[in-house]
């Protein structure tokens, strides 16, 4: 069953002199419970692809279906309900910096419709899983880079979403924590969540127990490899070879 479906999606940012094509004719399908790794060099369009799924940006052409629904057809008022089914770990975290970690996670659960008490309990468990003490009364602003990233992960996982988008979720984490997070994602996947993990870290690619391996370059999907529940280690040369023209900002 397809949970996530891109059909000929093209996306352009800005207009006039700041116009910039970020994605070109991207098509792929991910099944329920898939664990996809989205790789590609800096500026390839990974974050853009994830933003489209969240309806943070609109494609220029093509169609995107999330859990069977065409998200371009969504009324504005329905977008929040789409997002409640899509957990996201953003590259820049997007945490409430003045709130505590617990508040960050519990609030997002309350938005999902959970009662205060249940939200608190679930948020605690989610934070503990990423080794953040739920009892800290510090503002999230006062956490280290990696700690903030873990709060963002906890928030995305706590809601048990149908789709989980993770944009470079371990860029600020050490190898031990990176491994643990990847294991968490694999666990989530087994509960039926479709996971889409964007990264350029070969280590993460090799550790991630993925079912699909996607490779973007210059906005084009160069590769979509299904790996039968196996490890889709990239060939190191894929990432490093040749001039990567789109790496430079035009």
């Amino acid at each position, binding site marked *: 069953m397809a949970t996530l479906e891109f059909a000929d999606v093209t996306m352009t940012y800005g207009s006039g002199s700041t116009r910039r094509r970020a994605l070109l004719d991207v098509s792929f399908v991910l099944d329920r419970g898939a664990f996809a790794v989205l790789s590609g060099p800096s500026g390839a369009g990974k974050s853009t692809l994830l933003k489209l799924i*969240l309806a*943070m940006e609109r494609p220029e052409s093509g169609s995107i279906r999330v859990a069977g629904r065409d998200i371009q057809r969504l009324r504005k*008022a329905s977008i*929040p*309900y789409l*997002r*409640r089914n899509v957990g*996201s770990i*953003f590259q820049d975290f*997007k*945490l*409430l*910096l*003045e709130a505590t970690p617990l508040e960050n996670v519990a*609030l*997002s659960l*309350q*938005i*999902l*419709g*959970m*009662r205060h008490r249940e939200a608190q309990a679930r948020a605690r468990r989610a934070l503990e899983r990423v080794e953040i003490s739920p009892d800290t009364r510090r503002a999230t602003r006062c956490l280290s880079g990696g700690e903030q990233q873990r709060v963002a992960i906890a*928030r995305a996982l706590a809601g048990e979403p149908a789709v989980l988008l993770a944009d470079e979720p371990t860029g600020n984490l050490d190898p031990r924590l990176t491994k643990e997070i990847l294991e968490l994602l694999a666990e989530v996947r087994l509960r039926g969540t479709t996971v889409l993990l964007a990264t350029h870290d070969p280590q993460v690619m090799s550790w991630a127990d993925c079912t699909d391996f996607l490779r973007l370059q210059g906005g084009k999907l160069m590769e979509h490899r299904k790996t039968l529940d196996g490890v889709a280690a990239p060939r190191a040369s894929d990432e490093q070879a040749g001039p990567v023209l789109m790496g430079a900002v035009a």
Partner: protein
Amino acid sequence: MGSIHALGYVVLRGLRGMGQAPLVQMLAIATMAVCMLLLGLVVLVWTNAQGVVQAWGIDVPVTVYLADGADDEAVDRLAERIVALPEVETVEGISPKMAMARLADGLGGDQGLLEGIDASVLPASLELQLALGTPADFAAALADRLEESEVVDEVAVAGDWVGKVSTMLDTLQLLAVGAGILVSLACMAIVWSTIRLGVYARRAEIQILRLVGGTSSFVSGPFVVEGMIQGASGAAVALGLLYLGFDALRPFLESGLSLVFAAGSLEFFSPLGVGVGIAFGAAIGIAGSRAAVARYVEA
């Protein structure tokens, strides 16, 4: 989220948001209060001016001085004919003594001027009060007709300066309405900009709540609550200050006004008026915050 649940959360969060930056809140409320004070002052002056003008505009507009030794019966008949006119409300006979007393009163303590003057030198008269809304030219026409009568010596139509002051007050009223509208608009702009700056400062928070699935009303709710409270508090503070100021100044203003006008009683807003004022503040706060938050909620 259950909607009662959600409402509770939204209100709570609005209050907490205010608690987190109490100084900014206080300043926003103070800003509102200053604007509202200005607005309230204009409205208060205007309503009172209206009252004064009404009380005074119908006071002695036409005085019919009777000829010396006029026949009492003829005067009575004249008075009856006059009072029968629909535009005339009352007719009062003023004897020379009463006229003298009034003159003395008009000169205040400065009675020395009138010493030795016999009341009988002053003529008897009839004072007509015209109905409210009677056109100004009616009085003049009436005067012309009355002067034809034998028992009438002269008709004074509310004097020259009375007309001048009356036009002046009309113009002032217009200007006050204009100023009131301008001040209201300025108030709304200020409230809007205050809230907007606050919203702008928290735009990241708004974006985040939207991204984790908050509906636009959920996200903007706390700001609207905040705006409403700010607006209502601002209005309440303004009305309170206005009342204190009014109370302190009333005796002076009343005695000052009584020099110029017959009417001298000034009124503060009624409890209903105060309620309307506070509701108006809350409404401005809501409108301002909704407008301010809309832009960031959309993104």
